[in-house]
């Protein structure tokens, strides 16, 4: 069918610039990284092919722990983003005066350079001079400075909260948009039947947001899995490695210790994990909308 062939060719022409660009800029370093992962590349000028050794090295006990921690960290962060994003979207959707201002006010964490946002959180978490500790003491909820970044579990949560904070604006706005695209008459019908606000949220809003939630979960999963700056600036993976995630470990290995080969292997591993997520995502969305698009 000549008609269709020309269409396919046109589609590829449209895609080509973007594809070539990404291929040139990202694919090459990607392949480079992949090759590197089989070598002992370091600062030394000569590199040797070492086969699977780098991958074998990864699976020492410590790294298993890091992987596990990464998953937990990511899980909580993404889950919180979804919960807070949903909450925020619902609140900002309420027809109360000032809501467009409130919507604007959710944007700053997204706009501010990430490092700066993190520094501000660093201030907040500071036990001696920070706002949280200060307020807790002021209100008598703590009898001395509370150093949030000092202990494994508080630091763990502190980094998660900061990650959530950075991710929440986009999630909120996206969810807000999703909520607004739910037909209003569904709510009116439910209300006519006596469903209260909470009931309407639970039985209508939430189920109909599922596609948006899945999409956002996927996108923020990728971002969160790779979230580096937050942990690095706040704790550098400490104390005692309790906030070290895969990406931190990869950075420490590749950039800190200059073991480029081993670092590359870790990067490849991250990529494999994320590809699995992606794959799962596609499966799930296909099941959700089995019919092709309209």
């Amino acid at each position, binding site marked *: 069918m000549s008609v269709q062939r020309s269409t396919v060719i046109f589609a590829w022409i449209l895609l080509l610039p973007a594809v070539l660009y990404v291929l040139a800029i990202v694919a090459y370093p990607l392949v480079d990284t992949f090759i590197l992962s089989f070598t002992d590349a370091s600062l030394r000028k000569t590199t040797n092919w070492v086969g699977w050794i780098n991958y074998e090295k990864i699976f020492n006990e410590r790294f298993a722990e890091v992987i596990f921690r990464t998953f937990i960290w990511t899980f909580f962060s993404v889950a919180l983003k979804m919960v807070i994003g949903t909450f925020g979207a619902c609140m900002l959707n309420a027809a109360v005066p000032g809501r467009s201002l409130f919507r604007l006010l959710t944007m700053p964490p997204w706009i501010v350079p990430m490092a700066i946002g993190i520094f501000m959180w660093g201030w907040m978490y500071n036990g001696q001079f920070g706002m949280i500790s200060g307020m807790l003491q002021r209100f008598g909820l703590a009898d001395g400075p509370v150093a949030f970044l000092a202990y494994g579990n508080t630091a763990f949560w502190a980094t998660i909260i900061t990650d959530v904070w950075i991710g929440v604006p986009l999630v909120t706005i996206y969810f807000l948009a999703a909520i607004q695209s739910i037909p209003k008459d569904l709510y*009116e*019908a*439910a209300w*006519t*039947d006596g469903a209260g606000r909470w009931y309407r949220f639970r*039985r209508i809003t939430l*189920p*109909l947001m*599922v596609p948006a939630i899945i999409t956002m979960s996927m996108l923020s999963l990728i971002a969160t899995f790779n979230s580096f700056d937050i942990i690095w600036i706040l704790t550098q993976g400490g104390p005692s490695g309790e906030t070290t995630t895969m990406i931190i470990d990869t950075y420490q290995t590749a950039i800190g210790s200059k073991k480029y080969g081993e670092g590359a292997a870790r990067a490849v591993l991250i990529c494999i994990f994320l590809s699995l997520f992606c794959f799962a995502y596609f499966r799930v969305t296909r099941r959700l909308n089995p019919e092709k698009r309209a």
Partner: protein
Amino acid sequence: MGQLFLNKVQKFYGDYEVLKGVQLEVKNGEFVVFVGPSGCGKSTLLRMIAGLDATSAGDIVIDGIRVNDLPPVKRGIAMVFQSYALYPHMTVFENIAFPLRVERMEEEKLKAKVENAARILHLEQRLQQKPGMLSGGQRQRVAIGRAIVREPKIFLFDEPLSNLDAALRADMRIELAKLHRQLKATMIYVTHDQVEAMTMADRIVVLDSGDISQTGAPLELYHKPANQFVAGFIGNPKMNFLPVTCKGVGANGVEVDYQGQTAVLPVTPRDGIAGKALTLGIRPEHIQLGGGDIVFKVTPTVIERLGANTVAYASLNGESENFCAMLPGSVGIRADAPVATGINAADCHLFDEAGIAFERRVELTEIDMNVINPTAA
């Protein structure tokens, strides 16, 4: 139970007065249809009765209680939306069960009720499907099912059939009529399709830009429209209007002159209309080929042959297709071939300059009084 009273109900959007003091009483068990052209405020009025929109002024009284500030569920009404507003993520069963779940009805009773509703609406086979898999008519029935399980005092329908195709619409019309008889609930039905209005209503309320233009049984509106607006709106094809001059008033009615021909129309005369320009109304179905009290030649420009009848359109006085005649199916007319048509004075309507009708001296009993006021029967 299910008696509704609208007392000077008004609605403003900003400065714009959408409803201008609607006064209406709906009896228990009545099937009332709101008709009117697009934008006349039908949906707004319905939504105000439902409690979806706020009332700017006036009272909405249901069973003697002023409900202006009550939420819909407390008003004992159920509404079927034009878009059906089915929950896409729930099965038909859950959609119908929704109002009962809200009430936290216990599972067994709920199941019995939903199944009963499904039986009435012939949805038994569909209960486990999602709305996306249903046809338009089935969706419509699900929406109705959701309304009936609650056993409301009053049903509100906002153009429920307008998304359906003609055949389905006809079927659903019948089903709704039967449902009304079965449930004996008060129903208020909005449509801009006046065929629906004519066929389903006990009483039709014709709205004209925020005002009630006339209220009455379908055939009353058909035979005795109170004004030119109602006359034009009720009946399909539309009534033809011809400019006439009043020649005089007699015992038998009003004598009018149309292009030199005179006829005495059997309507109740009024004083001081002699010599005035009036409007004569004649329905297309009352135009016949050949003789009549007034005859004129027309050249049909468009002829629609529907099988059972034939509709001919013609220009009168140079205006575009302002004249329409509905003739028998096998009538021998052709486009562009002039024919002689005639009308009988008894079929004519007469309107004054303001569009107010002169009362026709039609004995509605002749037509079968029982039909005109079926609830009275």
